[in-house]
């Protein structure tokens, strides 16, 4: 089971606060490795609030926690904060103005048993 | 915000009158209005079969413990420290016409709301216009909060 989504990044004051404490904190990971999904999309996917999902595209893949969005319905749209997790999926070659596609990340979401990706793993991928 | 029905469901529902009120529903309303304390329901405290309900009741009532006499509750874990309430509060504005009225933090301690260490704090709650003989239903602070961190009981 999988669902195609377009991910838009957003600002969250609590994620900022956690990242300021430490990039290596549990709170930063919890608020970054998190994808807000439309309630109906989650139901269709068979994913419960808090359940782990893979979020991936041709650039990379991460494991995040699915969270039910409290917004008005937004099928096909998902939201993540800007972080090394979401950045695994961001294209940097989208157009001539050289602005990366932070607000239009095409990805596929699928339930998983794998553990949430750790930031140390992401750093390793960068240095590999 | 917890409601009377939710509280009632956590009580013995026997109408034993040991708390001094005729029904458990009356006690629930009394708890919400903070005229009664949980410990006044002696069966709930003393009887082991109500242990789980007592625990849950204490949990849902906890935010009200910190509510000021005007019924103002702040949930610090939700507060953005944005100062909207500080600037919207009519008492703050009247007390600090060159500061809070125009968006700055207060200088005096005559205000009701001020942001400290990133979170709003309530002081001088009795000055709040929802309190006292001429009380009005002012909702400036709750209506301007981006995260429902401030609310009334």
């Amino acid at each position, binding site marked *: 089971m999988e669902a195609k989504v377009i991910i*838009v990044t957003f600002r969250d004051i609590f994620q900022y606060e956690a990242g300021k404490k430490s990039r290596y904190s549990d709170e930063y990971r919890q608020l970054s490795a998190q994808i807000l999904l439309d309630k109906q999309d989650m139901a269709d996917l068979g994913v419960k609030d808090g359940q782990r999902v893979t979020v991936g595209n041709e650039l990379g893949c991460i494991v995040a926690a699915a969270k039910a969005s409290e917004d008005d319905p937004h099928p096909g749209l998902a939201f993540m904060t800007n972080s090394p997790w979401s950045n695994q999926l961001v294209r940097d070659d989208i157009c001539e103005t050289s602005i990366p596609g932070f607000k239009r990340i095409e990805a596929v979401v699928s339930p998983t048993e794998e553990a949430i990706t750790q930031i140390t793993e992401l750093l390793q991928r960068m240095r590999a | 915000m917890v409601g009377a029905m939710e509280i009632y469901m956590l009580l013995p529902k026997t109408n034993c009158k040991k708390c001094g009120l005729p029904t458990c529903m009356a006690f629930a309303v009394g708890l919400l209005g903070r005229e009664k304390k949980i410990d006044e329901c002696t069966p709930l405290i003393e009887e082991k079969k109500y242990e789980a309900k007592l625990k849950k009741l204490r949990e849902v009532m906890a935010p009200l413990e910190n509510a000021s006499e005007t019924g103002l509750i702040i949930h610090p874990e939700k507060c953005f420290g944005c100062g909207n309430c500080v*600037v919207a509060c009519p008492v703050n504005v009247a007390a600090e016409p060159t500061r809070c009225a125009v968006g700055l933090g207060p200088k005096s301690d005559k205000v009701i709301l001020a942001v400290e260490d990133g979170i709003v704090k309530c002081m001088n709650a009795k000055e709040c216009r929802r309190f006292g003989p001429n009380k009005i239903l002012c909702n400036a602070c709750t209506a301007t909060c981006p995260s429902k961190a401030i609310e009334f009981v």
Partner: protein
Amino acid sequence: MTTCTGCSLLCEDIELALKTGAITQAKNLCRKGQGHFQALFTERTRPMIDGQEVSLDQAIGKAAEILKSAKLPLLYGWSNSTLEAQAVGIDLAKKLGATIDDTSSFCQGILMERVLTGKIPTCTLDDVRNYADTSVFWGADPSNSHPRHLSRFAYYPRGEKRQKSYEEERTCIAVDVRKSATARLCSNYYFRLAPGQDAEFIEAILAVLEGKIPKFGDKKRMIELGTILRKTEYGVIFPGLGMVYSLQEKMDLLETLVVKLNEITTFKVIPMVGHYNMRGFNQLLLDLTGFINRVSFKDGKASHGPENSVIAAAKRCDAALVIGSDPLCALPFATARALAKVPLIAIDPRRSLTTDAAKVVIPSAMYGLEAGGTAVRMDGVKIAFEPAIKSDLLSDEQVLTRIMEAI
């Protein structure tokens, strides 16, 4: 009074109670500012080369060596440094024939260029507080990004011509793809778009302003919006990354809208800059070279182009200096990876993914608390600030000067 350097509002009414090693009380600091200031006390950087602690002199020496021998050095960051430090940085770039770029490159650059060169009219935040009766947050959620924006300027405070403020004299409008915290405060003045629909939305506004039926959106609401805009005495649009990223090369449409609005009434634009001195860097570089970012000093003179953006230059450079920024956290994986592969010099008060991947780490003082200087607020107002705490750490300005001397 202390100035907060947590975001580009540069709040100056912060009162700190200090004791050695701690801020025991901070007044008026929002949650974001509090996080920023409290960070002073944890995970501070130490001078390092290849993960080993060294003396400051050694780290600076190594940094100079790397930059001097590089053929295509990249100097990136800048938006968290003062004007004084940025000036030294630009000098350093000239001396090295390096490429210099800041966060505006993948952030507010396209819009900032138009504002700084006068193509789009702007005003100060004090003007907003005193005169604005309509504030439009477009693809921006200040409640989360600039928490005191609404209470200090855009919606809730009283102003010279707005004594009755938000209750009777101000309207706050949010245009966004999600119902953000700010959108909730704007209640029925929240216009929801799908990603990428900003161009159509602008065209619909232009249509209603000309008395035509809009082709997009709820007609009744669009006409209502047109009426609000028409009746506005002094309007301000605050574009966030949501709008900038959506319009990108179609930024001319915003220009067109603002021109149209100014035919009817007064409308200004203030870009929602993130970091506290991004606008300062853009203004400084513009004054010195004619460009706000993406400049290369190779061949002795300033040239500009997308090839000089950090995104592109990261892949071509053979050494990089990153100052006050954490691109390994904030930039797309491919860029982060490219930077992690070259000899990286990181100047930062605190540990980050970038300092962890750096070959050389140089600790710096935290501006606002441990070091002072001048910065430019998101609206162009220059704000000078003094440090609140004594520190032996060098400021960015001092570190860069020492590197320059060693080259």
